[in-house]
């Protein structure tokens, strides 16, 4: 496949760019793999990558019913941060954020990680207390965050109206090394490396059944035929309930639509990410100049990748108050993704009742930021049967009452 570099660009410039090859292969499925990953989103691809890189497991296929990165990985607002409250969350999200720092070098693919800083606004007394508590927790966890006052917020983001009217900005939790990355590139970069290691990324291949013998997985049925495997990783986000059903177990998950929208491109006006959880809106500016806006989820189960319009109205209304200048912007595009919301709003990285079947899901509205850390931990879990990163995220926590309750700390916005 060749290395991407400045020399490669120069070389190709002299031969009409005829030497670029496909970034990943387009193979037909083999009869058998050591491990199959269902779902070529960021989490599935990262899992496969670290299975190969950290554990030497390379006879691996990643099966995708659509196109790679076409699920939530290619639909999110790309916010990356690790300022969570609970220790297990901080550990896995900070692992991910740390890996993002040099992911472009690692993958030899520009994922455009931009640690521009993330501001989470406190707009009520309750939020001030909550975020101060998070800042103290982060200090103990070794995650670099700080609670800043309104004056500093205004310096960091001059286009913000901090005086209200409804919800004046009272301060913010500031994570200077949080930011954004190019979502498609994360999927593409991992896919290219997986392909380079000899793994098969198979698109247009929907898994329609999970085959078991005596409580142990032996393979999957797909639209491209039956494929055998020794281990199976289910990494299908909003479709987790559906695929788990094929394997014969039920999850603590509801699938709902989450929406985002982007404006027409404008000149650079905001070089940080701002999240406002009380009023439910978040915004950043893409390199193209578009204002990227994320909103709230619908409250009902939905698989249509299309949310209700009134949520967009609510989000835009709230953001117009905090950023009066956007009231004149035209919105260009709007879309939705199906997110997998768990009972305690934290992800599941776990063994399952079926031997050999592992599940990585429940990232809900906030899993883009976690992709490298999740892949790292889940690969270890699949290869060795346990991982310190995933230990607290097991399915049994719902029976045992050991919740990782981030809903207070993280809200819905990510």
């Amino acid at each position, binding site marked *: 496949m060749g290395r991407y570099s400045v020399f490669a660009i120069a070389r190709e410039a002299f031969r009409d760019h005829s030497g670029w090859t496909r970034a990943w292969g387009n193979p037909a499925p083999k009869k058998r793999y050591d491990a199959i990953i269902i779902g070529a989103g960021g989490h599935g691809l990262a899992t496969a990558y670290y299975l190969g890189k950290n554990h030497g497991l390379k006879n691996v296929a990643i099966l995708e019913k659509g196109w790679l990165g076409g699920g939530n990985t290619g639909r999110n607002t790309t916010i990356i941060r690790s300022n969570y409250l609970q220790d297990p969350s901080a550990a896995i999200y900070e692992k991910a954020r740390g890996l993002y720092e040099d992911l472009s070098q690692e993958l030899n693919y520009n994922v455009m990680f931009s640690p521009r800083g993330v501001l989470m606004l406190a707009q009520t007394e309750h939020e001030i207390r909550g975020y101060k508590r998070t800042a103290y927790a982060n200090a103990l966890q070794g995650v670099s965050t700080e609670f800043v006052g309104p004056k500093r917020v205004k310096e960091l983001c001059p286009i913000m109206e901090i005086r209200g009217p409804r919800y004046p900005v009272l301060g913010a939790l500031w994570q200077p090394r949080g930011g954004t990355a190019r979502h498609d590139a994360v999927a593409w970069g991992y896919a290219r490396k997986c392909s380079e290691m000899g793994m098969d990324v198979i698109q247009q291949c929907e898994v329609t059944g999970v085959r078991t013998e005596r409580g142990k997985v032996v393979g999957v049925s797909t639209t491209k035929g039956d494929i055998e495997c020794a281990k199976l990783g289910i990494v299908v986000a909003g*479709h987790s*309930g*559906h695929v788990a*059903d094929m394997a014969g177990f*039920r*999850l*603590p*998950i*509801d*699938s709902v639509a989450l929406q985002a929208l982007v404006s027409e491109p404008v000149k650079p006006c905001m070089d940080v990410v701002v999240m406002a959880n009380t009023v439910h809106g978040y915004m950043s500016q893409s390199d193209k100049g578009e204002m990227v806006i994320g909103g709230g989820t*619908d*409250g*009902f*189960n*939905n*698989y*249509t990748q299309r949310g*209700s*319009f*009134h949520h967009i109205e609510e989000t835009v209304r709230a953001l117009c108050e905090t950023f009066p200048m956007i009231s004149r912007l035209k919105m260009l595009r709007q879309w939705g993704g199906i997110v997998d919301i768990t*009972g305690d709003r934290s992800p599941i990285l776990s063994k399952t009742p079926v031997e050999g079947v592992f599940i990585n899901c429940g990232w809900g509205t906030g899993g883009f930021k976690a992709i490298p850390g999740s892949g790292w931990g889940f690969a270890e879990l699949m290869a060795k049967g346990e991982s310190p990163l995933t230990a607290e995220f097991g399915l049994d926590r*719902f*029976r*045992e009452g050991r919740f990782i309750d981030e809903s207070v700390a993280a809200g819905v916005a990510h």
Partner: protein
Amino acid sequence: MLILSCPYCGVACDETELQPGGEAHLTRFGPDASDADFEGYLFRRKNPRGVHFERWRHAYGCGKWFHAARHTVTLEVFGTYPAQVTEPPPDILDAIAAKVPGWEPSS
């Protein structure tokens, strides 16, 4: 926009008038329930790609809870019915069977 008619007032309500309440007909087990039963009641969800029975509250109307049968992929509504039942009434099941060939209620 989702429109459901409230079985009590007969009003066709916009989604903004309603509060969603999640999966319907969950059994809450008594004091001797096993951990698994209680976990099932609190967390395990069918979350189907297909027909879903769910709870809604006419929050900005009569304020009462009711049930709806809805398809989660087509967003088609098969009907709504009062909350005082533990399973979908026959006319709702017939309406679903007429529109979703081969559909069977799962346990």
